[in-house]
């Protein structure tokens, strides 16, 4: 993928990434994994795994991480600038017009924002399914996924700790995430890359 192509694709993603990380991931999964096949679902999960351990805006970090995979440091810089540019310009416009629109916002925007957020939630669940299929392949993996979700909702545990704990679990017992434990058949050793699903 050429750098100008990368630039325009991330401008498009940045323009449509309403609702934060969820839609950003959905768009990356749609455009870069499904349509163009320059990345795999595992690449996206890998980017999420390591950026969740680092402080900062996860969306920008995932874009930087995958931009690096697609075009080295120039790719990382271009993808991130393109991703942030639409949001930055919109915020700038809102900042300039702030006095005029501050009064009008609020109640009038709520139903529209609810509709948008409901759509975001639906799209995100579809993305969770697509990214989850290659990432959750064993019973132990399913337990970890459900546990991370439940602990995060019930106790508001910090995502970075949950990822770290699951990662250490993976170092200690890697075979529980690679083997089909029900049938006992051995899955092939995972590599860094895999074919698109």
């Amino acid at each position, binding site marked *: 993928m050429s750098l100008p192509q990368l630039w325009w694709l991330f401008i498009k993603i940045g323009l449509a990434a309403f609702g934060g990380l969820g839609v950003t991931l959905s768009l990356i999964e749609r455009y870069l994994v499904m349509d163009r096949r320059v990345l795999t679902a595992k690449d996206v999960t890998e980017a999420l*795994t390591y950026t969740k351990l680092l402080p900062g805006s996860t969306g920008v970090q995932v874009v930087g991480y995958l931009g690096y995979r697609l075009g080295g440091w120039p790719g990382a810089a271009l993808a991130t600038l393109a991703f942030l540019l639409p949001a930055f310009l919109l915020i700038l416009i809102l900042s300039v017009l702030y006095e005029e629109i501050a009064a009008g916002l609020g109640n009038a925007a709520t*139903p529209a924002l609810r509709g948008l957020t409901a759509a975001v939630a639906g799209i995100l669940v579809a993305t969770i399914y697509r990214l989850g299929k290659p990432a959750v392949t064993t019973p132990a993996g399913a337990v970890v996924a459900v546990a991370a979700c439940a602990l995060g909702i019930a106790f508001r545990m910090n*995502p970075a700790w949950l990822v770290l704990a699951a990662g250490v679990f993976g170092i200690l017992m890697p075979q529980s995430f690679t083997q089909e434990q029900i049938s006992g058949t051995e899955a092939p050793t995972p590599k860094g890359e895999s074919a698109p699903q």
Partner: protein
Amino acid sequence: MILLELFVYFAIISMLAFGGGNAVISLLERISVEQMRWVAPQDFAAAIGFAYITPGPILITSAFIGYRAAGFAGAVTATIGVFLIPWSLSVLAAFQVRRYIQHPWLQGFGLGAAPAVIGLLGITAFALGRYAIANWFYAVIAGAALALALFTKVSPILILIGGTLLGAVVGPILTG
């Protein structure tokens, strides 16, 4: 020197954002409203509102706070401050992970962490749904969006536009 202050404080805020931008919203409020007085309390509420109605990460609202504090230069400075270090760390991680991907520890870590990361996305979906699904109508929007995203090739952008329009136009009629 307000630009230097903006850069340093936003860089510090970004370095404490473990788990993502949402983790530091209260810290951002404390620093920009109470400590540095860059924005008034009601401005901060608008700052968060703006972040939600615009695309991109929630921390892009740093541009709004920077603009209120020091105009265009402030907007640019705050934005660079809040994204530069986390971005550099993530690209460095991409570089290092590629180098050591064959190491068994890194492989094991990736295997265990991947399902957890998927589970974390479930938390986000849950939080979004809890806010959005105020009644059955918004549940239908969410369900339709899920079905379209899962079973058709309809662009996610169109699904988002459709959900927003339905919410804006039909939502108030149906639910009063």
